[in-house]
């Protein structure tokens, strides 16, 4: 099919053509980036935590006033939680992922190192591997004699140090690339530059918040401390028994002391869902914008194409009278739309990269994958063809007799 007559017609409708091209370009640029942003959010929402999400219950309590013997109460709490039927493991710890508390510490390979190797989130507690459902991939869990009592460790004149540390796989690989971390020494939590010995590596344990960005999401370490008095408890049970265990656990904690307030009690999956709520909302919002943009663009194409068909009715009638088939008329309008859409898509792709550049600067986003461009182009081409189909068919239906009227 000869596109020259189409081009010359379009040249006589520069403004309208330019508007369609611009609209397609802008939609294309925005949609490519919006889809990319959605994919980034989904990736974030679906990254594994490393803990047994569906088996955990977390409870936070606050004491009213001071407790005379916090450690004794912590011991009692943990014991009564472990005694609840259906509880596989329970412990008191300093933080649980996505719970608005984050403990972090630098990790170095040398004592008195000027710039630490990395910053990791520090999980403190007894029996954490079991209680959180972590998977040891190398080495072992802490042994009973490695645990240190939290309160004694924190006394101002305390000389206690933590002998052992467990790293996540990501920390181990960053600190000791291509070699085993087990048995190595690192410097982190002990004072006076006493090292911890790495005894084990767990597959994964996510940081409690987005400190350090996505690249450092798996930077966590575990330290052997016992009987934490921070008021955060975690229980591991059968997913089916979570509700009953949670209820029994709250009752047990309230029974152990009447001077306390239960701040939060949730299945861990609820904690995760709440943490990602704004990301999920943003993904839905972006999706709504994409759909709205597609609809508006399609309506623009339908409107303008209808106008053109109406304007050229006589011209179409003449062509039909001179022997053009319905298919040729149909293809004329489809080709016209294809040309406009192509120009729009080319400009839109450049725009998409431009917007991506801005987003990369402002939101630390990665580069837009090249795959988005052909897919985006295909979608807009199809959209254009679908939108123009109605008006084009109306054009094809113009009877040749029109040419004989009103000339």
């Amino acid at each position, binding site marked *: 099919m000869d596109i020259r007559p189409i081009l010359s017609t379009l040249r006589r409708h520069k*403004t*309208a053509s330019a*508007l*369609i091209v*611009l*609209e397609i370009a*802008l*939609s294309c640029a*925005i949609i490519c980036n*919006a889809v990319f*942003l959605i994919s980034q959010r989904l990736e974030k929402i679906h990254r594994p935590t490393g803990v047994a999400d569906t088996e955990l219950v977390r409870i936070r309590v*606050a*004491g*009213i*006033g*001071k407790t005379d013997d916090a450690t004794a109460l912590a011991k009692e709490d943990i014991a009564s939680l472990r005694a609840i039927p259906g509880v596989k493991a329970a412990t008191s710890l300093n933080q649980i992922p996505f719970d608005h508390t984050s403990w972090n510490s*630098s990790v170095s390979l040398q004592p*008195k*190192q*000027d*710039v*630490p190797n990395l910053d990791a989130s520090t999980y403190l507690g007894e029996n954490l591997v079991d209680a959180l459902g972590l998977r040891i991939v190398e080495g072992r869990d802490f042994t009973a004699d490695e645990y240190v009592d939290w309160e004694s460790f*924190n006394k*101002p004149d305390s000389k206690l140090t933590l002998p052992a540390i467990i790293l996540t796989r990501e920390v181990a690989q960053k600190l000791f690339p291509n070699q085993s971390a087990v048995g190595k020494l690192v410097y982190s939590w002990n*004072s*006076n530059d006493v090292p911890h010995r790495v005894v084990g590596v767990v597959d994964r344990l996510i940081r409690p918040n987005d400190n350090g960005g996505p690249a450092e999401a798996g930077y966590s370490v575990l330290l052997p401390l016992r009987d934490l008095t921070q008021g955060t408890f975690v229980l591991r049970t059968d997913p089916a028994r979570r509700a009953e265990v949670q209820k029994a656990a709250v009752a047990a904690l309230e029974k152990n002391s009447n001077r306390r*307030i239960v*701040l939060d009690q949730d299945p861990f999956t609820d904690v995760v869902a*709440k943490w990602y*709520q*704004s990301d999920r*909302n*943003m993904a839905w*919002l*972006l999706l709504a*914008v994409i759909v*709205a*943009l597609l609809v*508006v*663009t399609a*309506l*623009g194409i339908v*409107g*303008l194409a*209808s*106008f*053109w068909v*109406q*304007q050229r009715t006589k011209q179409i009638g003449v062509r039909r009278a001179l022997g053009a088939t319905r298919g040729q008329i149909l293809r004329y309008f489809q080709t016209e739309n294809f040309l406009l859409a192509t120009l729009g898509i080319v400009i839109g792709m450049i725009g998409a990269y431009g917007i991506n550049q801005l987003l990369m600067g*402002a*939101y630390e986003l990665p580069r837009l994958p090249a795959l988005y461009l052909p897919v985006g182009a295909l979608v807009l081409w199809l959209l254009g063809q679908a939108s123009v189909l109605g008006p084009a068919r109306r054009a094809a239906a113009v009877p040749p007799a029109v040419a004989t009227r009103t000339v």
Partner: protein
Amino acid sequence: MFTYYCNLALRSFRRNKILTALMVLAIALGIGASMTTLTVFHILAGDPIPQKSDRLFYPRIEPRTKQGFQPGEEPEEQMTRFDAEALLREHRGDRQAMMSGGALSVESGDGKIDPFVVNARYTSADFFPMFDAPFAFGSGWTGADDENRAQVAVISKELNEKLFGGGNSVGKTLRAGDNSLRIVGVLGKWRPTPKFYDLTNDRFSAVEQVFVPFSTSRTLKLGVQGNMDCWGDQTDADGSVGLNAPCAWVQYWVELDDPSKASAYKQYLENYSNQQRAAGRFERPTNVRLDNVMQWLDFKQAVPSDVRLQLWLAFGFLLVCLLNTVGLLLAKFMRREPEIGVRRALGASRRAVFAQYLVEASAIGIVGGVAGLGLALLGLWAVRQQPDDYAELAHLDMPMLFATFALALVSSVLAGLLPAWRAMQVAPAIQLKSQ
């Protein structure tokens, strides 16, 4: 003439109901989306204390040890308790306050309400006059109360309603944990947004419910919350919140009654920093900052990045909607070229044709704007259903209402300009000939 053009526009709408409805819908969607996001942005990015935001300063000094030092770094964002107390004592600003977030368990005197935990702020006497905190009853405490570690408290309007039924509770006792605090003041309605004085805790939540002198909070060992950055070895008997602990966790604000005093105050901070280094407490080179409220909010990027993103997205969407409207209007007007030709041949000036079509375009814009306002209200309602701290604040105020109409009108007139211009250009002779 204007009413005649309006009449013509109305006829034109009737002739092309669907096309007109589509244009109105496109403008309404674009305006609705932009106004919703603009309102949220306006709420979050505003000046929380416009009357004196250029006279309130957030000083920063660099107290850390040499370890981990990298040249060009920003200084520590909060102060150590030692430095904050020293600066407070030296009293070089017109007003100054040190503060930290905290949490307290509160009980009602009659035991009718279960004990509950509230957010607290530990601060010093100048806090209330400095930040223009409004009082419903009583007032803040005095500098003497700070020095005497008096067990006094200022409570929020909400807490006063919950515990004392909203009456004047000054002089009554607040039971907080094991302690009894004498209430000296009850705040009025106060919601600085963002909560600029402490950006380490929730930025958009309501103000704290209990305010206690910082000195008292340390004597009573009340629990603190918020960011804490520690370095070096712990030696203080009170742990990381001790006076000599190498930990930064205190926010410090100073009021200078004339912004021109800022450079002198900065010099003072540098001198203080130099002295501390000479004394061996500070190890890094002197690194001092003094930001006013808006500079500090800007540095801390107080507006959530998602809100910014939504704003840009909405304006991109509005632009596409407007392009769409321009295209459709153009199509619509060009369809009436013969009609324009006749009018021109009968003596209508170009200006008259232009005016007529601009009226038609503006009418579409105004209807779209009104519908957009409705959509914006719907959008804001949707925002208020979100779990974000700032959700409850998402309301349209008068300036934003006017902005909506202005935006609707300006954008639709802009969208109408080009088609009206093209309509005006129609040459009467050609149209008449082709009839």
